[in-house]
């Protein structure tokens, strides 16, 4: 078993709030410079930047998991990840079907474009990506399960857009693969206060919106190799794979 550094929550140029510098090339190069082995691409309610980052990661030797940070009807942010491009595309169809038709105002919210390795614009999302889907957190979990993906409620104790802010506590019938806690949260203290979370794997990530923030926080995982399957096992604490430290 080897140790890998995983930063599984970051935004690209596609997120309106993501810096225009967050191109596939800058993300992959910065991640490698900072010694990360696995990164997750999680734009708001869109997977459209993932394919280019995954491709570049393969060329440069960085494992890139594609997914999205989805806003549910309750305005809870949840990270989702999918194993391959086909499943990402299937999930994109779900996002397209459930994102409300509210147009982005570029001056107010920022650009929503996705780009290739040469920073050429490949497309632009017209609908505002930071809206909430018309899907409940349960419906989202169901869709992710159907596509055999990973379902990870993000920054669960944040005062906004989190399970605890929006829904008061972890719903009993939700079965997350892991939960995210931001760096300002004392994990041991919170697990003490919320024993219902003790069985779950906690992840910490950078939630980077700017290149400087990539790898500012990450999780150290013990895996046989840096892959989607191995990471899933670690989150579920199977076959000796596990998350060993939060940085």
């Amino acid at each position, binding site marked *: 078993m080897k140790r890998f550094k995983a930063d599984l929550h970051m935004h690209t140029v596609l997120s309106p709030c993501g810096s225009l510098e967050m191109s596939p090339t800058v993300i992959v190069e910065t991640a490698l410079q900072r010694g990360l082995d696995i990164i997750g691409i999680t734009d708001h309610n869109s997977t459209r930047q993932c394919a280019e980052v995954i491709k570049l990661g393969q060329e440069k030797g960085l494992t890139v998991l594609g997914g999205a940070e989805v806003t549910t009807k309750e305005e809870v942010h949840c990270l989702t990840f999918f194993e391959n491009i086909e499943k990402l595309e299937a999930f994109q169809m779900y996002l397209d079907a459930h994102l409300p038709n509210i147009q982005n105002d570029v001056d107010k919210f920022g650009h929503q474009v996705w780009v290739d390795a040469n920073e050429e614009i490949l497309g632009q999302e017209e609908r505002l990506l930071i809206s909430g889907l018309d899907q*409940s957190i349960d419906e989202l979990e169901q869709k992710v399960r159907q596509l055999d993906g990973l379902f990870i409620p993000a920054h669960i104790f944040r005062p906004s857009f989190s399970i605890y802010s929006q829904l*008061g506590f972890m719903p009993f019938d939700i079965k997350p693969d892991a939960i995210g806690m931001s760096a300002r949260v004392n994990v041991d203290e919170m697990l003490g206060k919320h024993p219902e979370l003790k069985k779950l794997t906690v992840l910490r990530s950078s939630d980077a919106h700017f290149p400087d923030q990539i790898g500012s926080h990450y999780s150290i995982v013990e895996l046989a190799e840096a892959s989607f399957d191995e990471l899933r096992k670690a989150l579920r604490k199977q076959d000796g794979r596990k998350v060993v430290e939060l940085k």
Partner: protein
Amino acid sequence: MKVCDIIEKLNLKVIGGEEGLQNEVTGGYTSDLLSDVMGNVDEGQIWITLQTHRNVMAVASLKEVAAVIIVKDLEADENTISQSNDEGIPLLSSSMEAYELSGELYQLLKG
């Protein structure tokens, strides 16, 4: 005033929790953040929200509210309705928006 009187005066629909229709109402609270409601709603108040998740009824039960009103004719999740029945806390629905409904309820309880 009782929950059933308010149902009649504000033309509300009963979706669940009929057992609690005789609950006495002491006031109201309007919020969609369940964390906020857990901290601020008082026992006996009517809680007005647009959230439809099952956790709504868990918070309602924890805080012993008199009833919950879901606004804008939004459809409550099935397990929210069943939990309302289990808890015996009325789950009501209104076609009004939260602003309008809160105003009406305020007038009614003040009067």
